[in-house]
């Protein structure tokens, strides 16, 4: 598909104004932009690079891959993995799978929301924590479970969850 260069340049400028450098994903695009069926892979790698997928970036990817922006947005919003907003420094993935549910994941969620003052899917005002519920982390025998930046915490109680968050907050406060 023929790409209108003015459009690409305008899209790049829009990204740069947001502080997002489109050149960072040039390698990904040069490798995958023309490959059929690679849209999900492009979005996954873009999210690895930028941490999230702002709408302007989706528009840029649409231009470069010859897709309609609606299609790219449609794919990005279909899958749970993709985030359209930036996340906190610490991503809390709280397991809400069946085993965790039976063993009290709701009480853990309440404790986290209480402590941080956010709801599921939100990020704290200080940009430290984002809470995401996930369907199953696959560590059912340790339920209830949460994962923070790849580290798993099992057999949680509301108190244990609170103290884990408190120790991260303390560590961050000391680092300042």
């Amino acid at each position, binding site marked *: 598909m023929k790409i209108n260069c003015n459009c690409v340049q305008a899209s790049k400028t829009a990204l740069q104004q947001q502080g997002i450098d489109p050149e960072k994903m040039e390698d990904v695009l040069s490798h995958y932009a023309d490959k*059929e069926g690679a849209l999900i892979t492009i979005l996954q790698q873009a999210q690895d690079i930028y941490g999230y997928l702002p709408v302007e970036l989706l528009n840029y990817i649409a231009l470069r891959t010859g897709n309609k922006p609606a299609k790219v947005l449609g794919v990005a919003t*279909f899958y749970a993995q993709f985030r359209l907003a930036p996340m906190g420094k610490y991503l809390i993935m709280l397991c809400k799978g069946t*085993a965790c*549910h039976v063993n009290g994941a709701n009480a853990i969620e309440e404790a986290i929301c209480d402590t941080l003052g956010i709801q599921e899917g939100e990020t704290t005002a200080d940009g430290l924590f984002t809470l995401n519920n996930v369907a199953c982390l696959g560590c*059912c025998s340790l339920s209830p*479970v949460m994962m923070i930046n790849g580290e798993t915490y099992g057999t949680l109680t509301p108190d244990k969850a609170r103290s884990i968050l408190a120790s991260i907050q303390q560590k961050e406060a000391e680092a300042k």
Partner: protein
Amino acid sequence: MRIVVGKGSCGIAAGANKVAAAAESYLKAQGKEMPIGVTGCIGMCYLEPIVDIFDDAGVQHTYVKVNEASIQTILEAELAGKRAEAYLISDEDASILQKQTRIALRNCGIINPENIEDYIAKGGYEAIKACVTTMKPEEVIEQIKISGLAGRGGAGFPTWFKWNAARNAKGDKKYTICNADEGDPGAFMDRAVIEGDPHTLIEGMLIGAYAMGSDEGVVYVRAEYPLAIVRLTKALEDARAKGFLGKNIFGSSFSFDIRIKAGAGAFVCGEETALIASLEGERGMPRLKPPFPAEKGFWQKPSNINNVETYANVPWILKNGGAAFAAMGTENSKGTKVFALTGKIKKGGLVEIPMGAKIKDVIYGVGGGIKEDKAFKAVQMGGPSGGCIPAELIETIIDYKSLAATGAIMGSGGMVVMDETTCMVDMARFFLDFTCKESCGKCIHCRIGTKRMLEILTRITEGKGKDGDIELLEELANQIKASALCGLGQTAPNPVLTTLRYFRNEYEDHIYNHKCTAKQCSALITYEIDAEKCRGCTLCARNCPVNAISGNVKEAHKIDQDVCIKCGKCMSSCKFDAVHKN
């Protein structure tokens, strides 16, 4: 002496990496540095982290629930030629493996999944070699037919039939696809196989590809399984280096290679046509069948999709003969099945048992019974597509037909055990919440019907249920089943229908008596303080977030029910067991 640490995802979550690091630094300090081996999940998740030490005579000593401190005690004893008895696995726990028949999991927790030589030493890649060098593709399919192997992903469709259809489909390009998008909450069989024995999956796919005349394979793995992706990537590289993947395998005209595609998190992508859409970079939405993927699948080419466990059985079947596999199981279900045993169970983990065993054998025989010896209430099988099997049916035989007769399904192998404290209405609400969120939105009955069902279930658990709600749930459930396009929608009402079938009284209790017998639905319970037991320590009053508790020091306290928000903090903080839920 040789040290092996179990490093499946669950072992790592329990602290296996820390234990391995502690072992390494201890050995270094002792001047006895040695490599620390890795293995996958043995299935005894409740005992993780697990460390195996093989002494110089090759005898294995298994240590369980190891931590950074105990590993030093263990190593100190082992280096002195002794055992650290306190941390050894108990005979009872060790016997759990003997109660199983492990085929798909035959190497999990035994070999090093990152070393292809370990798999080869266990007879790996001999089956594909025999297929390519001595058997015709039709003969391979015939062995699968004799074995009676059926799809382990849930539907239980005969594997040979799919392979045969793909073989007979017209076209020079055919795809062999593995569905490793294990989205069923509470199930992790596929993850354990890929993490613990990735080469068995590769060999299974090779055999399938040879039988069907396919030269390209794709494994669609959940992105939530990063370790599985790492180990499979390594296994593919090693298999290529050995010439098991690539051109002219074992000097024949058969060529085949596999690539990995990371899924992006959508339960519906477990449905094969949705999976294909996702592979093509689209929204994962199912389409009408026929045409079946065997005729028109990935990029409109003939494609075969099997689940991980199905492929994992294939090398064993070809090596031991289809008849050996068919010798296990019942008339309509052959071989073994892996289950992820979780919930209110004492010994949770992965178990593989022959078809035909009873549910009771799994829960009490292998699983050790219910946590805290509470009463067994039900077991949920088949995840969001399955159903709850009540305690009175605990003697039910595990095979496709018997489970379907209960209203549940075999499913991919999730087995979530529930006790008397699990509310069945809340359980149904939980699954509907899941399927409602995961509905792709294509069919109106599934998209809107599950939403309406969820609303009704939510209001019942909130104590706002109305006369007629049960009948309305049934009507909606039957309509969704009848009119949804794909498996997700057709089975979404199952958790509601089975709980209505076996636990209708709980629904009625919620609606008409404003009572939750399991004491889980907070709108329907009250917290009360037992004046006899209360010592007046004031702890509950100080912990109450809404100041609903009053009373003087050293006198019995009281909860103001109008103010109470039923958070349960009083109950969890009371040291005298004086707060009760009613």
